């Protein structure tokens, strides 16, 4: 039977040093195990100066494509190099992450291989003959069950959809690590510089906990209290469209149909009334909390727990309660 491949995602520092693996890489391993049956789970680890990360992925086999030609990311260049290896080794399934990198690279690989690609999936499986997936459409207002009938079958997985695989060290004997020669990787669209935000908080699209603010926060200056709550929880700070359009918060923080669609373990909506476009973007969160002064706000119809009242009183009080909880541990 054919192997299941995952495309490992590497965390880079601003000078393009590979500092670790993105959490979604381990989530991809979990998802791959679920569809692999008895087949091998193989990871493709591409870049320059990345080989040291191979053992930590948790795959059975790691194809290490570590080459100066892959020092700078290029969607067309990397796709060509990875597709060439896939064309030769013929995996049955190739899984990537639904991230800025994965959404850019995997379609280009699929185009070269003529493969079907189910994008931004939240569940993967098989029906015995083909890869199956559940993927949100209309920002989550509907869910499509799909089958990918091509060989290979491809899919990208939304972060936080699966628990990360336990550390690779646990797998018996460790993975087989194979250095794969990198063929033609010359790309025409090339990254020249990476500019990382100085923030120590996680990004909205990857965070396990999100503290999000809406118009009810009253003004950009009041987001400081959401940042304090976020820091107490190790969370990202998100925002509603109204807040982003008013210029209070950057576009990259927007949750909703024209922003990020997210599925964190915990979503805390502060002063967000819950427009249909916003609810669509966060409704797949595992647990939703709402703080709002209006007991009739639509956000309460999707919240698991809510507090009705003034966010300026509730947020600091809740932050205090979280800190007290941590201090008591």
């Amino acid at each position, binding site marked *: 039977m054919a192997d299941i491949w995952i495309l490992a995602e590497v965390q880079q520092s601003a000078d393009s040093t590979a500092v670790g693996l993105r959490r979604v890489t381990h989530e991809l391993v979990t998802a791959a195990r679920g569809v692999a049956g008895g087949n091998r789970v193989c990871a493709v680890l591409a870049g320059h100066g990345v080989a040291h990360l191979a053992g930590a992925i948790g795959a059975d086999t790691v194809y290490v494509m570590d080459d100066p030609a892959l020092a700078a990311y290029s969607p067309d260049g990397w796709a060509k190099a990875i597709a060439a290896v896939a064309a030769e080794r013929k995996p049955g399934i190739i899984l990537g992450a639904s991230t800025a990198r994965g959404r850019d690279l995997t379609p280009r690989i699929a185009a070269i291989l003529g493969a079907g690609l189910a994008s931004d999936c939240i569940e993967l499986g098989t029906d015995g003959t083909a890869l199956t997936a559940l993927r949100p459409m209309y920002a989550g207002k509907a869910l499509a069950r799909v089958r*990918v009938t091509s060989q290979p079958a491809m899919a990208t997985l939304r972060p936080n959809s699966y628990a990360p695989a336990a550390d690779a060290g646990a797998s018996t004997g460790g993975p087989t690590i194979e250095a794969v020669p990198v063929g033609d990787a010359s790309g025409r669209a090339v990254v020249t510089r*990476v500019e990382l935000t100085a923030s120590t908080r996680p990004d909205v699209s990857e965070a396990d906990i999100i503290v999000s603010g809406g118009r009810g926060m009253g003004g950009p200056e009041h987001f400081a209290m959401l940042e304090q709550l976020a820091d107490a929880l190790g969370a990202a700070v998100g925002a509603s469209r109204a807040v982003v359009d008013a210029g209070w918060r950057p576009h990259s923080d927007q949750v909703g149909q024209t922003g990020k669609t997210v599925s964190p373990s915990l979503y805390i909506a502060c002063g967000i009334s819950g427009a249909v476009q916003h609810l669509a973007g966060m409704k797949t969160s595992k647990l939703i*909390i709402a703080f709002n002064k209006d007991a009739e706000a639509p956000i309460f119809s999707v919240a698991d727990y*809510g507090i009705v009242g*003034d966010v300026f009183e*509730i947020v600091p009080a809740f932050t205090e309660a979280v800190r007290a909880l941590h201090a008591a541990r």
Partner: protein
Amino acid sequence: MDIVVLIKQVPDTATRIQDRVKDGRVDLDGVTWVTSPYDEYAVEEALRLRELHGGTVTLLTLGPERAHGALKDMLALGADEAQAVWDPAFASLGTHARAEVLAAALRKLPHDLVLAGWKGVDGDEGLVPIYVAAALDYPHLSFVVGVEVEGRTITVRREIEGGKEHMTAELPALLTAQKGLNEVRYATLKGIMRVKSKTIPVWTAADLGIDPAALPAPAVEVTAIERPAERGGGRILDGSPADASRALARILHEEEKVI
């Protein structure tokens, strides 16, 4: 610099799609159709590049006659021309086939740059523009939030988790727009009046020299569309902000085990 912008018409984002899921499909009968919001950013950027560098902005859509409405809305913003592509044989194409049809149309439209929204906010696939770039053998630049063109070199900033990537490529290239790229202008009354009676030209499969039977079959089959599980309204915690907050923190820690 001549620019072609790919346009997709989608149901208005305020549509309660979940209420239209029936028998494994979405019933779109009677919805309000709009231009996919990310495509609007692409059009706006094309108009700004035309203001800076001269040239033309042409809109291209693959869709039936109702999609002409989206083209007219974007023409009213100031685009020069619009071209539709439609054929009854194009009604249920997969993503690779749609990209091939659009690429065939692009080969007939002179251009230096192709712009598109990064995804249509209906299927949320985010695939067709990149497949189009691959079909034309162009470099692509996605999730773009800043663009500069100097001579034949395009430099962009693209959004990544926790920051931005700066990328360059030589034209011709394809780029996809992310929110944050620009603020879309409003149509002027003059613009709206100008396009009101405009007839949108349509190319059929034959016009593009395409044999529909030779297009790639869909490789992603939709077996069913489901309504997401409704979340019941939850529990409201009473008491003072301090008491309710303490109770909530305890529940999240002890019962839900998320903090």
